[in-house]
């Protein structure tokens, strides 16, 4: 009797689900061999991968030369990659013709700018002080790059190159084009036909032509536009061209946000007695811009990739500096390895940005989305 009372119910541990439901075999059956079409395509893909990957591995890793040893590279040509071209030339590729002894400056400047860019991605930091931080960091960035202050030797812009140039061109052109883009987008939505026509013409005109013709214009025509005797730095001209170009694309992005805003928001603001300007600044823009952060990010990715085009008007950004590095007859043969290295740099940055854009898309509007 007493012993029966002391018996506590002990459930036996549940059995694991059968291997047809869970585990690697079930996963493979579901994802790789679900029906004969799927099975055949899996086998075909596996066969293709099996034929190519070992070759790729043997070329890129097993037989590759990593040391900056030209003779060794030439010995393994056709069988292995010569990553030696990267270890030999990476400073030229990354910093262009910036004076060798001073290359810590662009390194530091880029580090700061990237850190700030990364910090700007965090929503908790979207405060007023971030704007101030941008101003300070950009000032320090240019002080470091130009020199001439605090005992740094001046370096003229013609010698800037490599990654810092890519970073400046994409960041500055986007930062500068942002206010212009907001103005143009608002103008395009405006009820005043004169202003609307001007904005539409600007956007359609710029979006209708390739960037390269804008860059040609910046390098051949801008000097003619200026009053006599003034010469503008080629970097500045290209920067103006890229800013005007990306402003048109950004304006369309912002307009998308403006159009997505429910009309009731404006009506509510008006019924509260806010003026047009107050409505725009306090009601419309904050909501519209928040909606388009992912799209702005995509525009930034585009601008980052498009900076490679300045190579054609002879500025030495990452792509151009690589051509400079491969101008060395000793290493010209290993063009592909150098290109892959630069492609990898672009890929890392663009991929990170596109991931961020996707992440923020799912996190940004959770408050307003109905679920």
């Amino acid at each position, binding site marked *: 009797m007493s012993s029966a009372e002391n018996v506590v119910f002990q459930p036996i541990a549940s059995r694991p689900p059968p291997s047809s439901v869970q585990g690697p075999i079930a996963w493979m059956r579901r*994802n*790789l061999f*679900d029906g004969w079409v*799927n099975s055949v*395509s*899996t086998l075909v*893909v*596996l066969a293709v991968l099996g034929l190519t990957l070992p070759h790729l591995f043997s070329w890129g890793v097993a037989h590759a030369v990593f040391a900056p040893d030209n003779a060794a590279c030439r010995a393994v040509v056709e069988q292995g990659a010569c990553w030696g071209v990267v270890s030999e030339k990476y400073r030229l590729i990354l910093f262009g013709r910036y004076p060798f002894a001073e290359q810590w400056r662009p390194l530091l400047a880029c580090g700061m700018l990237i850190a700030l860019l990364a910090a700007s991605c965090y929503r908790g930091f979207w405060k007023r002080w971030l704007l101030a931080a941008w101003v300070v960091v950009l000032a320090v960035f240019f002080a470091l790059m130009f020199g001439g202050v605090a005992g740094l030797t001046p370096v003229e812009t013609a010698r800037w190159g490599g990654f810092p140039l890519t970073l400046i061109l994409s960041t500055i052109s986007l930062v500068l084009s942002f206010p212009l883009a907001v103005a143009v987008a608002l103008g395009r939505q405006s*009820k*005043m*036909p*004169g*202003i609307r026509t*001007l904005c539409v013409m600007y956007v*359609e*005109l710029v*979006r*209708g*032509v*390739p*960037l*390269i*013709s804008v860059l*040609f*214009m910046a390098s*051949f*025509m801008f*000097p*003619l*536009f*200026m*009053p*006599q005797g003034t010469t503008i730095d080629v970097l500045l001209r290209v920067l103006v061209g890229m800013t005007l170009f990306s402003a048109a694309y950004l304006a369309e992005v912002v307009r998308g946000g403006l159009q997505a805003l429910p009309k009731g928001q404006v009506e509510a603001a008006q019924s509260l007695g806010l003026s047009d300007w107050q409505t725009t600044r306090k009601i419309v823009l904050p909501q519209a811009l928040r909606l388009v952060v992912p799209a702005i990010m995509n525009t930034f*990715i585009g601008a980052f*990739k*498009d*900076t*490679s*085009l300045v*190579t*054609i008007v002879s500025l030495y950004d990452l*792509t151009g500096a690589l051509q400079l590095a491969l101008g060395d007859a000793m290493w010209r043969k290993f*063009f*592909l390895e150098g*290109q*892959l290295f*630069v*492609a990898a740099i*672009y*890929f890392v940055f*663009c*991929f990170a940005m*596109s991931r961020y854009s996707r992440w923020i898309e799912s996190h940004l509007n959770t408050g307003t989305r109905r679920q």
Partner: protein
Amino acid sequence: MTPSSPPPKARQWSWRSKAFRSIVYQIIAIAAVIAIGAYLVHNTLLNMRVRGIQSGFDFVSQPAGFAIGESIVPFDSAESYGKAFVVGLSNTIRVAVVGVVLATLLGTLVGIGRLSQNFLIKSLCGAYVEIFRNVPLLLQLFIWYFVMTELLPPIETALQPLPSVYFSKNGLQYPVPEWAPGHWMTLAGLVVGVVGAWYWSRSARQHLYATGNTRPVVLPGLVIVVLGGVIGWVAGGMPGGMEIPEKTELNVVGGGAVTPEFLTMLVGLTIYTASYIAEIVRGGIQAVPFGQHEASAALGLSRGMEIRLVQLPQALRVIIPPLTSQYLNLTKNSSLAVAVGYPDLVSIANTSLNQTGRAIECIAMVMACYLTLSLLTSVFMNAYNKRSLIKER
């Protein structure tokens, strides 16, 4: 309820009147734009006079003095700059049209592949999209150019993927059918076939409306078209002459040929743009709600009819507008040909600019060409958008 006082009349010429203010703002904006424009033009004219730069479009009729590597219409260096521009434009359009077709095919395949049940195919397509979207096109073109001009075998040991097709550092040589008068009959037969197929589909629709029974349309239609072509070909005397490239000691002569530069542009543009198109196609397919599938199943539509009548029209409504802008992007991106030496519009304009010094005129001509192309595209796109809007009552 009557208003206590009539609403105040809007005073037209007061700063308090919104209408008046907006007129002032517009006048200021337009005046500012005109002033800046006038200032720039003034500077330009002054600069050009001081530097002794000639201006005007008279150079268009002067002999160009440079040869063009490849063109659809033959071009001689004694011909005019104007003709050179036309050749450049035709080269741009050639690479753009072929690229658009190939990129659409590849992009659609990859986009559908990303939605595949098969894990391997899904990840491969995902990797493709991520890799090619996140590397600048210019860099990709450089790499393709290297592949086409350095990694491919020399002409003596050209690859032969098909008999009489040669693929080497010198580009691609392939057989083309020899033009014979009999081919006119083939063409005529094809036209008759198309008309017949159209007639068949119309009668099938009338049959459907009259009796409610469907008749097959696609397969019989294709058969009618092909049959028409074959009958025309037979009636034309079965011309079968092919111009086959011949391999000699140093070269391959005859047949059709494309240069490595063209191939570089084509492959680079196709692969780059296809990665964007894949995402558009995927998004379009995913945009059709699942309820549509359930509803069409409840109506008893077969899988094929469901895709054709329910899924595709709705997906296309989402897909077409961004797809058109990708086509336009591809056309604009073909301007990067200047980097690999394919004689497209920009590259010809660049050469002319360096020879004549007429920077403004050359750049203006390039911009005008691209603007025309893109305005035409947006006219088409707006028309399509209007047509495909959901008809709501």
